[in-house]
């Protein structure tokens, strides 16, 4: 009887010892997991923050760049060629000189430099063209049409490198005209992909762009997505977007789906049309970077 009790007591002690050990291991495991996950989350938070800050900087550069921003009128300075410089009748007459056919000579007083409005004609007349001042925040429709595509023609979107972008990055730029909106609050605008210098191997940004173009749609769903994600991501079904990213770009690609303020609210701009109209608009920038 005594031996049976001693045996049970020993068993209880052993079980207690095992349970205490397991508990200690669990506590250590929990602390380790907390430590590792905290470190990882710090890295993610810092990466997202850096990405968003880069997007803000990039938006500022884009609206200040002569590639997109409206430049004031070209001014022409210097001294124009004298009339006897011109050897053909057309160039002579266009410089406000008189042409004598018999002598094949040009005479008179030419236009002064400030009469020339275009850079090419200014140079032809021997003057020096001075580009107009870049107007920060005022985007030129002619330049937007060259780099981006209008919202209605999404199938023609292609990746462009205009020399503005972070290394190993991919930027989705959306510009909307707030004064050209329909009753569903869907506004006219431009959209385009820009890439920075890419040094990674096996990266298929072109395929990613094609995939996005194929799956873009402006339907009733996009109106609801507009309310949820903002205008930059409203054109795509989230599942299509995820598939495009997973199938074409490496897993180190980060942050394009983060719903930051520059992505969802954008920056205010003015859009200048060729006829002189100026509309208020916004520019949205989504930046994806490869870590």
């Amino acid at each position: 009887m005594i031996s049976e009790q001693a045996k049970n007591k020993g068993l209880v002690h052993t079980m207690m010892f095992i349970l205490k050990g397991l508990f200690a291991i669990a506590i250590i495991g929990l602390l380790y997991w907390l430590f590792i996950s905290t470190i990882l989350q710090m890295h993610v938070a810092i990466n997202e923050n850096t990405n968003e800050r880069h997007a803000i900087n990039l938006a500022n550069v884009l609206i200040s760049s002569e590639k997109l921003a409206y430049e004031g009128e070209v001014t022409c300075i210097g001294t124009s060629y004298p009339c006897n410089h011109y050897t053909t009748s057309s160039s002579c007459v266009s410089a406000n000189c008189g042409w004598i056919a018999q002598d094949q000579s040009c005479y008179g007083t030419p236009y002064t430099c400030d009469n020339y409005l275009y850079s090419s004609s200014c140079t032809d007349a021997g003057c020096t063209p001075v580009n107009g001042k870049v107007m920060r925040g005022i985007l030129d429709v002619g330049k937007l049409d060259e780099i981006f595509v209008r919202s209605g023609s999404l199938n023609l979107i292609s990746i462009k490198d205009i020399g503005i972008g972070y290394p190993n990055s991919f930027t989705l730029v959306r510009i909307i005209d707030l004064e050209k909106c329909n009753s569903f609050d869907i506004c006219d605008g431009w959209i385009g992909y820009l890439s920075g210098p890419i040094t990674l191997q096996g990266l298929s940004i072109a395929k990613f762009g094609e995939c996005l173009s194929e799956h873009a749609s402006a339907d009733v769903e996009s109106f609801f997505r507009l309310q949820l994600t903002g205008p930059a991501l409203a054109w795509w079904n989230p599942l299509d977007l995820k598939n495009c990213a997973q199938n074409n770009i490496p897993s180190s690609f980060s942050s394009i789906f983060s719903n930051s303020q520059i992505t969802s609210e954008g920056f205010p701009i003015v859009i200048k049309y060729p006829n002189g109209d100026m509309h208020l608009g916004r520019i949205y920038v989504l930046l994806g970077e490869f870590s």
Partner: protein
Amino acid sequence: MKGQAEIAVMGIIFTVVAVIAMRMPLIILKYHLAVDLNIEYNYNNAQLTLLSLVSAKYNETYSMYRVISERDSNGFDEDMKGKIISNLDLLTHAKCFRLVDETSTILEKGDCSAAKNSGEIYLFRPYGQKLVEKIILVYE
């Protein structure tokens, strides 16, 4: 039994303290990052809002810049204020805002008191007492 309850309480306290101690740096870091970024975005947004406002056209002849900078000499009626307010509505998406100079309110919208975000811009005033005027936009 009493001893076991004490051990349980100690265990709970230890776990809570450990979790908080581990998570607190992350929470503080995230808070600072979010606040800094928010300030940076709001600063840029407010400055660009004012820049876009003064760059926009009032009509075929006048720019918003001229309407604001020459308001003392050309007048500043309700139509002019209304047009500026509608532009600021589009640009800020704010429920209320105020446009002020250094001493007075130029215009305001809404019955709330805007205090959250602000941007400032300096305008050249050809006919004013001072050649340069500081305009401040405050919006909620």
